[in-house]
């Protein structure tokens, strides 16, 4: 589509303004995290820290056991990633590359749970885990990921698997391969990018999860970063320099992961949205 110069120019201006609005909170975060409290509050606002207070980060990170929170979060994230990638790919294979009676009906039932508000299953799940003696452990946060890793991920992978030509499997069958071999040697390597999409979304979802840890974890020593950051806010409510430094540290891994896998993110969102 060709556009007039005037229209293009207006487009650039609008996008520039919108981008600025989206990015200002980040700049404000970084700038506040590196400032002295006295400079933070100067009117009109100053944008460049003078001097740079890198020690804000040290003070923020040592005032609470953020190291422990970081390790806790990593343990949960890594376990959830393993569970999700393993079981969502296997399940998606069963829902796309094997033709069995009732397959699509079963899948439709599972898919309908995507519409289900999490609040409905929250209380019985909590009571169940508590009854089993797993309150204040990581099991309630990790174990479900080993059971399919969420229907959203299965849906995404299934979409991708259905696009792989059937000839690939048939050739393998002629060579005497079973379903497991087809899954492991053909479909999995061919769907690398879809698996990366699932892994990226899972990483972010778990890293950012707030309600899960809030409900299932009680001891400070078991807290995740998200929970720790919220607690930090409770005790340092007016110290915006430290709060912003701690927030920046919690955000940083997400930004790095996103920038590294950006291509896959966009692909993944498009893959799920298009079928709408």
């Amino acid at each position, binding site marked *: 589509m060709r556009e007039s110069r005037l229209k293009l120019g207006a487009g650039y201006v609008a996008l520039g303004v919108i981008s600025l609005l989206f990015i200002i909170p980040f700049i404000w975060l970084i700038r506040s995290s590196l400032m002295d409290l006295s400079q933070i509050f100067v009117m009109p606002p100053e944008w460049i820290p003078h001097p740079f207070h890198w020690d804000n980060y040290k003070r923020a990170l040592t005032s609470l056991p953020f190291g422990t929170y970081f390790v806790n979060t990593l343990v949960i994230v890594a376990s959830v990633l393993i569970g999700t990638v393993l079981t969502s790919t296997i399940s998606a294979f069963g829902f796309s590359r094997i033709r069995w009676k009732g397959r699509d009906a079963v899948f439709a039932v599972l898919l309908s749970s995507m519409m289900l508000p999490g609040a409905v299953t929250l209380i019985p799940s909590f009571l169940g885990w508590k009854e089993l003696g797993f309150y204040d452990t990581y099991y309630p946060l990790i174990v479900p990921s*080993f*059971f399919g890793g969420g229907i959203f991920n299965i849906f995404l992978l299934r979409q991708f698997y259905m696009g792989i030509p059937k000839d690939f499997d048939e050739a393998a069958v002629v060579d005497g391969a079973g379903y497991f071999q087809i899954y492991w040697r053909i479909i999995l390597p061919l769907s690398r990018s879809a698996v990366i999409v699932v892994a990226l979304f899972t990483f972010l979802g778990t890293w950012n999860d707030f309600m899960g840890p809030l409900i299932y974890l009680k001891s400070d020593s078991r807290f995740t970063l998200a929970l720790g950051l919220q607690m930090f806010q409770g005790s340092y409510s007016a110290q915006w320099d430290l709060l912003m430094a701690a927030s920046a540290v919690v955000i940083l891994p997400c930004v790095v992961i996103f920038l590294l896998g950006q291509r896959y993110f966009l692909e993944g969102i498009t893959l799920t949205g298009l079928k709408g």
Partner: protein
Amino acid sequence: MQTNIPMNAPVPVRRKAGVRERKALFYGLLFTAPAVLGFILFTAGPMIASFVLSLTDYNVFKESVSFIGFDNYARLFSGQDESFYRSLGVTFYFVVLRVPACIIISFIIALLLNMNIKARALFRTIIYLPSIVPAVASAMIWMWLLNPDLGLINMMLKWLHLPTSDWIFSEKSVIPSIVLTTLWGIGGTVIIFLAGLSGIPKQYYEAVDVDGGGWYHKLRHITIPMVTPTIFFNAVMTIISSFQVFNEAYILTQGGPNDKSLFFVFYLWRTAFRDTEMGYASALAWVLFVIILAFTFLVFRSSKSWVHYEGGGPS
């Protein structure tokens, strides 16, 4: 659909196909077992349990549990529980404000990104980036930006001699302020719109060019009808997520000031985990479930009159 006849099947096709079918069924069930078990254990089971719980007076501190029929529901709708009505009102207000704002703004941004511009990837990255920020950190940033005395937004407003606001600290502006903070994270919706827009065949626009139609004609008669399936998808997703807002209420306001941001799920959480009234909270959960179901159903029903699928009816 492809036919089911195996490619290199020998003569006794029927028997062989039966064996094959049984084998496929066995492996199909085996491969999908994790997902199916997960659905039973973590979705269907808890859902039924939640309904059963909603018929009891289960309280964590009480030793005995008794079946009380629909008393919890009667109590909900009897009018004694003011917080219930408050939380419904707050949540509806939020949904009514957020869903159209989110759809319209992300559609406009997607339209801009879909223009023949350079540096599209850069703009797209900047707009998507906030949606990966953890909710707690995002709440922290907004609390600081919206701080009435020292936050950037009020400072800027003062500097421009415009009226300031107490944002999340005032009863009147708390919900619009929370809507504003969630609009920072609309990147995902924008990307889905962008995918929908890029799927529109170029010839359609060229046809309008030939007829001498301007941009308004293109928008009104091609772009909008062609992206109605995407609008529909985004609307359903945004409605479902807006009804379930929790993090913002918990971190930014704790339901305040004066319960003016008592979101439904926050009230549910408070009932279940602070007041430990699990039975009553389960009834709340089911009410939410029915509301979301009803809304989704309404949107689906209405979609027949405004969503256009290529090549006729919905697939």
